[in-house]
């Protein structure tokens, strides 16, 4: 086993110890079908949590998206994203007007990889997720055979609030919902609103007695 693989296992073990990282497969079983998991985004910890909640076989083929300017700025960050997580780098700014920021994602999907994306584009602090960016719609249009899995990550904002470095142990869950399909002729805005609702529908209800 390589050093990067060992680090990956270690990281998922730490994530499990701190958050429990329980995956609840409510709407679909964990299979190796090609998928795009789209989730709410509250913390830097989100990706690690999804990664730890996935079965080991799926981790190798499921890739996160990382902002190139931030995640290649130091050697450690570059190694972590490239070697351990096999991340796909995207640029936040376009160098030329006709550069497509989705191109690396399209390439990866063409290779048969699964992706985890956070369509809000940024971390939201509390409550409901913000409006989704259009990327999800374009990917769904280009790859109709890829399953779109709405995913809700619960409680993680309490583990590591913005600005803190040490995580606090609190149980988190990752709920995977039923695959979403782009309806024929569906409008972009309609679809994104439906996708956002599907993510929010996975939020666990607090059981009251």
């Amino acid at each position, binding site marked *: 086993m390589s050093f990067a693989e060992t680090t990956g296992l270690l990281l998922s073990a730490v994530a499990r110890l701190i958050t*429990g990282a*329980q*995956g*609840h*497969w409510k709407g679909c079983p964990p299979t190796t079908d090609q998928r795009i998991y789209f989730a709410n985004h509250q913390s830097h910890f989100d990706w690690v949590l999804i990664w730890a909640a996935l079965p080991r076989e799926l981790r190798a083929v499921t890739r996160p998206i990382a902002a190139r300017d931030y995640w290649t700025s130091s050697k450690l960050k570059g190694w972590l994203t490239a070697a351990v997580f096999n991340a796909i780098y995207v640029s936040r700014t376009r160098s030329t007007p006709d550069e497509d920021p989705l191109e690396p994602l399209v390439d990866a999907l063409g290779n048969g990889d699964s992706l985890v994306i956070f369509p809000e584009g940024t971390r939201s602090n509390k409550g409901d997720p913000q409006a989704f960016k259009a990327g999800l719609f374009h990917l769904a249009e280009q790859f109709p055979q890829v399953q779109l899995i709405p995913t809700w990550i619960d*409680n993680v904002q*309490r583990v590591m*609030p913005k600005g*803190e470095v*040490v995580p*606090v*142990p*609190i*149980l988190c*869950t990752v709920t995977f919902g039923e695959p979403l399909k782009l309806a024929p002729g569906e409008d972009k805005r309609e679809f994104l609103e439906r996708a956002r609702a599907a993510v929010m529908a996975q939020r*666990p209800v*607090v*059981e*009251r*007695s």
Partner: protein
Amino acid sequence: MRALRSWSASDQIALLFLILFGLLIVISLSAFLYSLKEHPPSQRREDNWRQFRRDLNAIWVGSCLFWAAWISGPVGATLLFGVLSFLALREFITLMHTHRADHRSLILAFFVLLPLQYVLVGTRHFDLFSVLIPVYGFVAIPVASALAGDPRRFLERNAKIQWGIMVCIYGLSHAPALLLLEFKGYEGRGAFLLFFLVIVVGIGQIVQEVASRSLRRRPVARRISRSFSLQAWVGGLLAAGLTGALLYWITPFKVGQALVMALIAASSGTLGGLVMKALKRDAGVVYWGNRSSITGAIGLLDRVAVMCFAAPVFFHSVRWYFKASL
């Protein structure tokens, strides 16, 4: 009996485990055989059966942990209970809805107080061990919280954290302390004390459960627990006291003393259980932990809560008894 007394402490303890696991295997086997038989479907029987299975599983887990704690010696026992404390506190804090400003206090609780408390147990510094959390931790937590600069619900937030620490760290850490505390003339037999405590508290709890189901008396505090009635509680206590008296020979106590010790342990345990129920109601859950969970083993707090209350009371009572100079 005399021959047994002449055995070494570790042989006696090995025999204890042999009997314990033998009994458990017999019970589990008969439960399995019973489950093969056809029964007329009834909701009540189904519920009781499920409850019984849950209790039996909990007892199995507890016994295995107890055995693991014993064979792994002071370091292992400390580590084991340390991890249990960590998991229990994690569960407690999850359900207590802490705020952002509590972050530093929680780090202090999880990563400073918890390891420190267990290091003190492992190294047998029992004088500092008894006061670290009630005295030093009591000051440290609100200070960390005040420094975070958020006055909203300050008392409530700190009370939650202090409570979690007292129950999940302080309370539970008294279990390995019992294993490690050395009394004059009773060296190396701490496992018997822990065993005595677990059995007595467990019997008290089970008898109380059964009694409240069959007696169906008026509950003392209906809105907290529908099953907790005075008669059932007394029944549980009597059973625990009787068990304690019957087990006197594994303890340093005389018969009457063992009875009193058992009563003390069982009453603090069962009443502690009631307190935990009130806390759960307050948090709005029936069981600790997420019932819809498919993977991970949570709901641990339900299993250890009673011990968290019984262990410190029992520990300090035993210390009084021995007037152990610490």
